[in-house]
C-alpha cells in the first residue's frame, strides 16, 4: 500500500469537529470577485515567526507579492519536493495572477492566509478564536472567495 493511502486510511476514522449545518456565503460573479488563497501548509516568510509544533493555532498573513515562502507544517507524511520546486503546487499565487490578468477573476486579494494544519482533533481555538480573527482580516481586504489548500 502506498504511504499516501496509509495516511488517508489513518485519517479517515479520526474524530472530527461536529458541524450540524452548512454555512453558505453567496459570492459575486467570479469575474468581479476578489480571491484569496487560504492554506493549512503553515507557509510563512523568513522574517515571520515560525509555526511551533503540533497545536500552534496562530496564523500568518502573506502579502500578494510574497514568493518562496517556508513550508512550516510539522507533519513528515507528505511530499515536500514539489513545493520546493514550484510553490504553485501548494500556493497557486501565480495562477491567480494569470486569472486576474485575463479577467477570469475580479482581483487577487492583497493578502493571503496560512495556518498550520497540524492541530489537535477538536480544533476549537482555530474555530472560535484565531480562525474568525483571520477571516475578519480577509473580509476587511474585500475578499469574496477563498481557495483552501491543505498538504
Amino acid at each position: 500500500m502506498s504511504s499516501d493511502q496509509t495516511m488517508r486510511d489513518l485519517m479517515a476514522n479520526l474524530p472530527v469537529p461536529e458541524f450540524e449545518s452548512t454555512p453558505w456565503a453567496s459570492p459575486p460573479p467570479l469575474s468581479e470577485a476578489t480571491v484569496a488563497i487560504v492554506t493549512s501548509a503553515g507557509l510563512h516568510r523568513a522574517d515571520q515567526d515560525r509555526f511551533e509544533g503540533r497545536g500552534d493555532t496562530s496564523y500568518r498573513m502573506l502579502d500578494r507579492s510574497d514568493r518562496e515562502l517556508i513550508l512550516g507544517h510539522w507533519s513528515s507524511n507528505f511530499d515536500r519536493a514539489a513545493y520546493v520546486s514550484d510553490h504553485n503546487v501548494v500556493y497557486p499565487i501565480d495562477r491567480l495572477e494569470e486569472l486576474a490578468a485575463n479577467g477570469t477573476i475580479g482581483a487577487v486579494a492583497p493578502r493571503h492566509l496560512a495556518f498550520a494544519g497540524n492541530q489537535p482533533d477538536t480544533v476549537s481555538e482555530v474555530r472560535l478564536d484565531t480562525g474568525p480573527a483571520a477571516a475578519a482580516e480577509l473580509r476587511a481586504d474585500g475578499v469574496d472567495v477563498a481557495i483552501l489548500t491543505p498538504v
Partner: protein
Amino acid sequence: MCVLAHVLEDAGIATVVLASMKPVAERMNVPRVLYCEFPLGRPLGMPDNAQFQHGVLAAAFDLLNAPSGPVLVDYPEVVAAIETPLACALPPRFDPDIAASVDEAQGLRAAYDRAVARRGATEVGRSVDADGVPGALAELERLVAGEHWKEVYGPRLDTIAIAHDIRAYYQEAALELAGGPVPGARQAEAWFYEQTEAGKTLAAARDALTEQEAPSGITFYMQPVGR
C-alpha cells in the same frame, strides 16, 4: 482545512476546499469540496505544470455556481505517488575518520548551497541551519551507539525538528544534483531513507530512542508512517 471553510463562510467568504481526505470532508458538512486524489503535499496536483493547475482551479471555481450545498465533487484526474527512489549520486567517502553520515552531509554542502542560491529560500532551520547539519548527525550517531538521549541533548528532545532539517537539507541538495523535472511524490523521501547514510542513521536513531522509551509523540513524528 474544513474547519476554516466553516469559519470563512460564517464571515461571508465563499470557499472551495481542495480536499485530500475525502472521508474527513464528507463528515464535516463543508460547503464546497473538490476532492483531489493527488499525492499528499501537492494539492494542485502537478508542479511546474500551469495547465494542470489551471484545470484544478477552474473545477474549483465551477463549484461556486452551485445554488446550495453541501457540494462534493471528485476531480476526474487522479495523480499517484511514485515511491521508487530518486536517481541521485552521492558524494564519495572523503574523510574516513568521521562517521559516514557526517562525511556524506559535508559532501553535499556545495549542492545545497547552489539550491538555496537558486531558490532564494530554504526549508532548513527549524532546529539547526546548514552549518549545523553534520553536527546534528554526529549527535544522532551517539544515540545509535547507545548513549541516552538526555546525555546527548539534555532535558529537551527536539528530534522532530532535527529530523526535518536533515531531510530538508538532503532533499534540497538532491533536487539540485538530480536536475531535470521534479521527481514524483515520495521519490525524494525514498531516496533519503533507502540510499543515504543520513537516512539510515536517522532511522537507527529513532529505533534507539524508542528503545530508550523516549516520548512516543516525538519518535512517531520523526519519520513518515511506514518507515
